């Protein structure tokens, strides 16, 4: 961007200005990084999320490759604060998906970079960053599908170039090999349908490359025959590809409020960004548009993939904002120069429009934005951001005018109003982001609070239960609970759990789900076979905590029934309704989860009124035969049960067993129980 400027303008001054621009740009990026860091400090600092401060930088680079520096800076600033991104990367809840997004953007950046330069070196780096992505998140299939689609798009629209070949072909080979190195992926990298798309495009690309090569040697007559062949192959590919995308939808689709919550005003800016991407359509900007479209689709299927959408939305709305500022400030400048019409300004302006950017343009841009600053100064939060924006405006202005000779001139009032509106919009965005970071995403999920008339209530039951576990159970006792609480139990109670939040192994989760939905005896046998000592359930019926195990219970039934077919969902539903009151089915009222949750519940108020469900429970007085209650927290939110020991039940079997292997078993028992050792 900066090179042609220096060549055309007077050498010394422009070089100095370029250096200043570079320093300013770096400084702004640094500020954005600091902002990205500080906004994540709303929650308790547990882990250092240093890597995240690079994300805005790479987003900046991607956008810069696509559109230019001003848009890049804007995108970086927006990304630093986008709420959906914060949701995964606040200092406290920092997990592998947050790292993965960094890898994702980095991979895309390198891909676009390779596409622009055609250098094998960047292609290698691209493959390596893809490897990093594969290591960190299962969402790498997004990359390995998106890039082939882009390549296919480029081919079909006739934008094939040898740079495209260099960017894509080594990536497929190296990326496949590297992905196969990761244990969880392994041979899946060449065996599963998600990856076939890339190979197919790889083959198509070779055909096309060959065709182009031959076309260079030959007359165009035969070339047409070959083209039709390629297009038919491409079409069959596209029709084959659609079910692959559809098969990804394994999680819940998001709701509209969550879109608004997560990307806020960006949703309105995205269309504008798309339009400005199409104005001069290059390989890179078509890639950005494609990225956005697929990301929107994916986030529509699965709420978790909102995370993938965020960088794309940021890039495009950054482009849109900077274009808008560009047009508006330019027209303001033009109007001003007409208004004053004194000689120095006019000469400066003409030189700016004829060949290169000049200091006048930056000065005038600054002059324009200064009044706004005083107006928005009363608002404290946006002011920081606004100052940044002004810098971006100041930079985007000198970049653009040399490209567009025909100025789109708006009236003075309209453009000033437009700038004001944009700044207010940015202010709203900042306020929303700060609010989201502070309130929605920084609240610890382990300590719950509720506001009522008589002040703030704190429900600290989870920590109470975990502390009880860690103080009152043996170190090697195993605890069974639904997987949501696996990591918490491991970390806070320091006990081994049967299933945790790592959901790779579906069968194991299904086993626990089956146990929870079985009657007591069957459940006891399952838990005993897993060597479980304690069972932990979360129950919100007393205080009205809605995300408890009874509400999650249908998922346990479904997941359990997916692996063990004797668990059938209709058995737990009365006429298709899920209920635990007197209308509930006998299977429901006899399953372990119901019993563990509502055991002795009737003693609290005499009626057994469940505040979450809003009715009295179905079965109030019952006894547990295979489990005993050992601990219930203050608000009854966590209840812990112990499995009763084996000897109380299968007596006959035990006797037979003893007569068979008497010596060894008594020996072993004696050694274990010996109190003097």
């Amino acid at each position: 961007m900066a090179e042609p400027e220096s060549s055309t303008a007077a050498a010394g001054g422009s070089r100095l200005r370029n250096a200043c621009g570079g320093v300013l740009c770096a400084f702004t990026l640094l500020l954005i990084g600091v902002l990205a860091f500080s906004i994540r400090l709303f929650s308790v600092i547990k882990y250092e999320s240093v890597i995240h401060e690079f994300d805005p930088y790479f987003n900046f680079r991607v956008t810069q490759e696509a559109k230019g520096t001003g848009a890049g800076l804007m995108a970086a600033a927006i990304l630093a604060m986008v709420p959906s991104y914060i949701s995964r990367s606040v200092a406290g809840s920092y997990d592998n998906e947050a790292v993965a997004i960094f890898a994702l953007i980095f991979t895309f950046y390198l891909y676009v970079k390779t596409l622009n330069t055609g250098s094998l070196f960047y292609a290698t780096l691209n493959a390596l960053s893809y490897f990093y992505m594969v290591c960190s998140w299962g969402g790498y299939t997004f990359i390995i599908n998106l890039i082939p689609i882009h390549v296919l798009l480029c081919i079909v629209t006739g934008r094939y170039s040898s740079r495209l070949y260099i960017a894509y072909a080594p990536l497929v080979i190296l990326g496949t090999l590297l992905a196969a190195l990761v244990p969880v992926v392994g041979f899946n990298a060449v065996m599963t349908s998600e990856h076939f798309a890339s190979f197919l495009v790889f083959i198509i690309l070779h055909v096309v490359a060959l065709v182009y090569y031959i076309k260079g040697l030959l007359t165009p007559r035969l070339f047409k025959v070959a083209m039709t062949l390629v297009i038919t192959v491409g079409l069959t590919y596209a029709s084959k590809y659609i079910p692959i995308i559809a098969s990804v939808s394994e999680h819940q689709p998001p709701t509209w409020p969550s879109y608004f919550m997560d990307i806020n005003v960006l949703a309105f800016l995205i269309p504008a960004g798309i339009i400005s991407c199409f104005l001069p359509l290059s390989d890179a900007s078509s890639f950005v548009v494609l990225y956005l479209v697929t990301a929107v689709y994916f986030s529509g299927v699965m709420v978790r993939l909102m995370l993938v959408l965020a960088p794309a939305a940021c890039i495009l709305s950054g482009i849109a904002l900077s274009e808008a500022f560009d047009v508006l400030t330019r027209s303001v400048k033009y109007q001003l120069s007409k208004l004053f019409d004194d000689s120095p300004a006019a000469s400066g302006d003409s030189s700016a429009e004829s060949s290169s950017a000049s200091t006048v343009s930056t000065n005038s841009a600054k002059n324009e934005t200064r009044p706004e600053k005083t107006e928005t100064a009363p608002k404290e939060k946006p002011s920081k951001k606004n100052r940044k924006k002004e810098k971006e405006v100041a930079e985007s202005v000198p970049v653009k005018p040399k490209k567009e000779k025909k100025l789109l001139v708006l009236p003075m009032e309209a453009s000033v109003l437009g700038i004001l509106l944009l700044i207010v919009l940015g202010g709203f965005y900042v306020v929303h982001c700060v609010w989201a970071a502070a309130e929605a995403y920084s609240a610890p999920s382990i300590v719950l609070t509720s506001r009522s008339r008589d002040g703030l209530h704190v429900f600290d039951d989870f920590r109470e239960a975990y502390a009880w576990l860690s103080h009152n159970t043996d170190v090697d006792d195993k605890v069974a609970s639904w997987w949501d609480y696996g990591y918490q139990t491991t970390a806070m109670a320091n006990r081994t759990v049967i299933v945790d939040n790592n959901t790779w192994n579906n069968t194991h989760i299904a086993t626990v789900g089956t146990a929870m939905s079985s009657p007591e005896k069957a459940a006891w046998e399952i838990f005993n076979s897993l060597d479980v000592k304690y069972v932990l359930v979360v129950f919100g019926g007393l205080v009205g905590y809605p995300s408890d195990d009874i509400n999650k219970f249908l998922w346990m039934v479904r997941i359990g029934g997916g692996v063990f077919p004797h668990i059938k969902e209709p058995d737990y539903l009365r006429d298709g309704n899920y209920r635990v009151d007197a209308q509930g089915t006998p299977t429901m009222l006899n399953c372990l989860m119901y019993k563990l949750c509502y055991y002795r519940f009737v003693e609290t108020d005499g009626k057994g009124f469940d505040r979450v469900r809003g009715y009295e429970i179905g079965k109030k007085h019952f006894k547990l035969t295979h489990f005993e209650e050992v601990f219930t927290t203050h608000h009854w939110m966590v209840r812990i049960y112990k499995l009763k020991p084996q000897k109380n039940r299968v007596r006959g079997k035990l006797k037979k067993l003893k007569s068979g292997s008497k010596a060894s078993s008594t020996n072993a028992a004696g050694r274990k129980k010996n109190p003097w050792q």
Partner: protein
Amino acid sequence: MPRATSDAKLLIQSLGKAYAATPTNLKIIDLYVVFAVATALIQVVYMGIVGSFPFNSFLSGVLSCIGTAVLAVCLRIQVNKDNKEFKDLPPERAFADFVLCNLVLHLVIMNFLG
């Protein structure tokens, strides 16, 4: 039918004539590419006859061949004088990139070979 054959003959002739004009270093690269692809084909045929039991060995063998072929094609694209897109890329730089890429590729393959 005779028209088609004459067309084909003409095509092959003109192809051969056009190819004879390519510089020698590009021809060497072409030979290398053909060699790599042929090796890959031999491996695939072998897999078809004997079976793909040590699957990672087969995979790394074939991918190594295809990978070198692809990288060589990239190198060929970059050093080709007729290619306008890479005017400012010196052939030394292209070759260095090629070597680096091959190094990475074969390190990975050695790791994967098992």
